[in-house]
């Protein structure tokens, strides 16, 4: 299919691609972040954001602002963008866009189930859910007592249903179970998404497999680090890794037997793309890992817009100029970048609100 996307892509995808590239131009730049970091209070942040795409979403907020309001409104903007694109999309792009939100759905399911386990109010939990991951009967999740019920009552209607096939047990839900469920679901989701992208072919599969492989590897590392010192067996741990990505399969074997963070590091440094991430950290430290991964992710996502295919060099040399566009990965990249931007904004506003301006740069990931 290489090169021929250019012929037909614009029939259905041209308008949306133009839209998404326009949205990308609206992402905050480093200059914006520098300005935001100098803000004295949340009103300053609002004032600065009023000059950006968030302006119309924030302008009607009464003055004592809260961090949550800012984040909520910014998320609303993301959701509006997403919904607009979804409305305009045709197959297979609409399915692709749907896939993007499944991750949020899994998170929401887990959030509600954990919340009910700890006897929180359902309405309160629902307010905390990410709006992209909402589905109709989400509130009913609270009814279920175990996974089987969860599946039978609620999730069978959602697109998440196929992912549940691996974690159907009638055990009662507890924290450990839920975490395992989350990771099993994520594994199934990522693999499914990966397969779907492969099916789409062309530049989309090329770039998306790169991005998804990174996501899978990051999750593998996170699972490993988080499960160190818990009662999760090596076999179980290995079951949670997605069956693709740069680490698959040999890296997984090694990760599965890691007992502390330095061993993880030893495994990861064998893989050149991750070497840079780990070489930034001193031994025994894992706090900065998240940020390092986020930075790497953002770098890759931005590349999806600028688009240089790293792998099939020969092919790209022939058709580089044509595959600069015409793929779906830009949508995925845009959604992820916006989410990162909202995380940044949340961090900045929290720092500003709590007068911790010295820590602002700890967690902000600059994009452009």
């Amino acid at each position, binding site marked *: 299919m290489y090169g021929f996307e250019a012929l037909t892509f614009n029939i259905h995808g041209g308008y949306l691609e133009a839209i998404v590239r326009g949205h990308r131009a609206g992402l905050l730049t480093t200059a914006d972040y520098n300005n935001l970091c100098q803000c004295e209070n949340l009103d*300053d942040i609002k*004032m*600065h954001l009023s000059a950006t795409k968030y302006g119309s979403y924030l302008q009607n907020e009464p003055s004592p602002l809260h961090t949550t309001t800012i984040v909520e409104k910014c998320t609303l903007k993301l959701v509006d963008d997403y919904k607009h694109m979804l409305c305009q999309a045709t197959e297979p792009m609409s399915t692709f866009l749907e896939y993007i939100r499944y991750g949020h759905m899994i998170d929401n399911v887990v959030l509600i189930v954990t919340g009910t386990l700890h006897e929180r109010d*359902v309405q309160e939990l629902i307010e905390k859910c990410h709006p992209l991951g909402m589905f109709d009967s989400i*509130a*009913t999740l609270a009814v279920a007592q175990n996974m089987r019920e969860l599946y039978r009552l609620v999730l069978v209607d959602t697109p998440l249903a196929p992912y549940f096939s691996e974690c159907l047990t009638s055990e009662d839900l507890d924290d450990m179970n839920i975490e395992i469920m989350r990771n099993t679901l994520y594994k199934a989701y990522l693999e499914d998404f990966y397969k779907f992208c492969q099916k789409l072919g062309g530049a989309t599969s090329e770039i998306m497999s790169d991005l998804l492989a990174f996501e899978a590897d990051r999750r593998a590392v996170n699972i490993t680090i988080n499960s160190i010192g818990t009662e999760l067996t090596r076999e179980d741990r290995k079951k949670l890794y997605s069956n693709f990505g740069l680490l698959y399969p040999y890296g997984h074997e090694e990760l599965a037997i890691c007992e502390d963070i330095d061993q993880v590091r030893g495994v990861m440094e064998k893989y050149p793309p991750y070497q840079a991430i780990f070489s930034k950290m001193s031994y025994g430290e894992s706090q900065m890992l998240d940020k390092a991964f986020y930075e790497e992710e953002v770098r890759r996502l931005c590349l999806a817009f600028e688009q240089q295919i790293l792998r099939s060099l020969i092919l790209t040399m022939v058709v580089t100029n044509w595959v600069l566009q015409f793929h779906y990965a830009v949508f995925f990249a845009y959604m992820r970048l916006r989410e990162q931007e909202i995380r940044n904004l949340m961090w900045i506003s929290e720092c500003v609100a709590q007068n911790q301006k010295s820590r602002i740069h700890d967690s902000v990931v600059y994009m452009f």
Partner: protein
Amino acid sequence: MEDFIDKLPQMDLMRSEKMTLVQLIIPVESSHRCITYLGELGLLQFRDLNADKSPFQRTFANQVKRCGEMSRKLRFFKDQIDKAGLRCSPRHELEPDFELGHLERQLADHEHEVLEMNSNSEKLRQTYNELLEFKIVLQNASGFLVSSNAHAIGDETELHESTYSNNGFIESSSLLEQEMRPEPLNQSGLRFISGIINKDKLLRFERMLFRATRGNMLFNQTPSDEEIMDPLTSEMVEKIVFVVFFSGEQARTKILKICEAFGANCYPVPEDTTKQRQLTREVLSRLSDLEATLDAGTRHRNNALSSVGYSLTKWITMVRREKAVYDTLNMLNFDVTKKCLVGEGWCPTFAKTQIHEVLQRATFDSNSQVGVIFHVMQAVESPPTYFRTNKLTNAFQEIIDAYGVARYQEANPAVYSVVTYPFLFAVMFGDWGHGLCLLLGALYLLARERKLSTQKLGSFMEMLFGGRYVIFLMALFSIYCGLIYNEFFSVPFHIFGSSAYKCRDTTCSDAYTVGLIKYRDPYPFGVDPSWRGSRTELPYLNSLKMKMSILLGISQMNLGLILSFFNARFFGSSLDIKYQFIPQMIFLNSLFGYLSLLIIIKWCTGSQADLYHVMIYMFLSPTEELGENELFWGQRPLQIVLLLMAFIAVPWMLFPKPFALRKIHMERFQGRTYGVLVTSEVDLDVEEPDSARAHGHQEEDFNFSEIFVHQLIHSIEFVLGSVSNTASYLRLWALSLAHSELSTVFYEKVLLLAWGYENILIRLIGVAVFAFATAFILLMMETLSAFLHALRLHWVEFMGKFFHGDGYKFKPFSFALISDDDE
């Protein structure tokens, strides 16, 4: 010659206003008032001196924020008033302009009040909704219960009415909890929950219930008769009353949880009919109580809102103005002592005295000790372009500006467009019937000008209204051209006396094959009506219109060239006159000017010469005898001379100018090697906070090859352009022909054909089709296409000859201009 040109009268529109860069040094205490007064005057464009600062770092960021907050409150009021459906006409009373702080306090009070009332009424509304739902459930659910109780032993679900009635209506919002109370077990183990749910959730709700209880339940539903207002969106939603029968305690908790998850409100219904009746009565009476309270609340709120509404528009404009003033103040710089604000800006030279007066008034009004210092500065960058237009010329200026804003003080084509634009349009749209229709439309717009200008129109009407004077002039000119073409919906009229032609015999059968005979003097004005439909009609009209198009085109292009001469003279560049204007004039006129001359001679003498032949052989074999195509004596030598001149003109416009420019640059550069040091010292001495100076000195990078290529492109464009542009004017002929043929088709093939039948229905249809085609195809589509072609002729063929259009518009700080742009 020079004297004559200098003595030409001034044309205001010809060149944009002279602008001056001015500096204002305003004492802090009078700054706000000064800016306000300047905004009222609206003749000064401020330059942003703090472009490097982000909005919240500027001096008056706080005030801007406060204004933003106030406008948010005002939007809130507006929203509330719109929601409440109130219409408040602004009361025109001259309240004293209050201070910002005062208004801020007042707005905060009002907002607080409205918010409180809203939350109160929301609470009431919620209680009311619950009661209403309860009532509906009671009314509807009893039906199911009666039928199901026929065999069940009644009176199980006992209701503790004593607690219920003691609660008072505020607490009755906790109705939900009531049926959480343990109910005595039914003997048959069959129990029920009744409630109400949104219609769109019903299906999923039912499915969920079925799954949760594994089908061990009975679900009854009935639509409610009344719609209930959703308190969040204040929309009416349809709800469905349901009753679920089930058995077992576990199923009960599950069902309750599901109800909660779906937002279904459950209400207990006693199975005993007497109790039901009693409960219904109670609910009804409380409902009527609540309704009265709610009504009173709404009235109270409406009163409060309408009191806000009276001055809302006034406040909105006031806040908007304040915000604009602070935004402008943010563009000013503080001087070193922090006691004065320094501003820079452009103003038209004529407005200097006005600005001066305004500033003095401001100083006086604010009781400031120190006056505002206002002085003129040296400008390095090019000033903005500002034309003073009136209602009529504005539309034409807009047409020109759409192509590009004129460079500062460059000749403005809008002056000529006022006449040439409608005229060229009319040449293509010559029909006095259609012209009259257009005129009526334009007159309607003009007559209602005052009313329409205050209204908000749709985008299409807005465009029409904006161009009403253009349409008016276009209509007048097309009536004129229509009279010349003698076209009225393609019907010839004998307006100016009778025709000069008659038929050969009485039957007039050969009029369209052989022709007519002329028997008297020519028809005094325009085309003879008898020519319509005759054999010679098309050849004659085509030849006439084609030649006319060329004449019009050549004269318009010559006008463009002459304007380029005036531009060059104005900007004092003799190079452009010598090496561009003169050869261009020679080239254009030696070829196409000559053609125009031939056309006129042919018209005057009635010669049979073939102009194509003359023009083509002028190039192919200029020395050959012309033979029967000779129009005047000495034509051959003249042609040779003209041809030679044209050939000379091409290198003339190509080579000398770049070389001359290089020579000038070399001279300047040599002189400068000594000058640089001196000026740099001077620069150090002069302490002028002139920001323009910083980015002013553009080092002129002289790149000879670039300039030469540019000149080459320009010359080639002109040489080829003079051929293609002349040909382009033939569109005048083509569109005019198309228009007259189209209207002939509609008149003869639709109207006359239908009229030929006796049947009234066919006639009516014919008239309808004719009217439709005339209105939509001829009056709308044709007008649009002629308009666009006239636009092209102006933009490309006319303005391309002289217009640079790389200026920027004068945007004064003016309250009149900041209307709705931020909404």
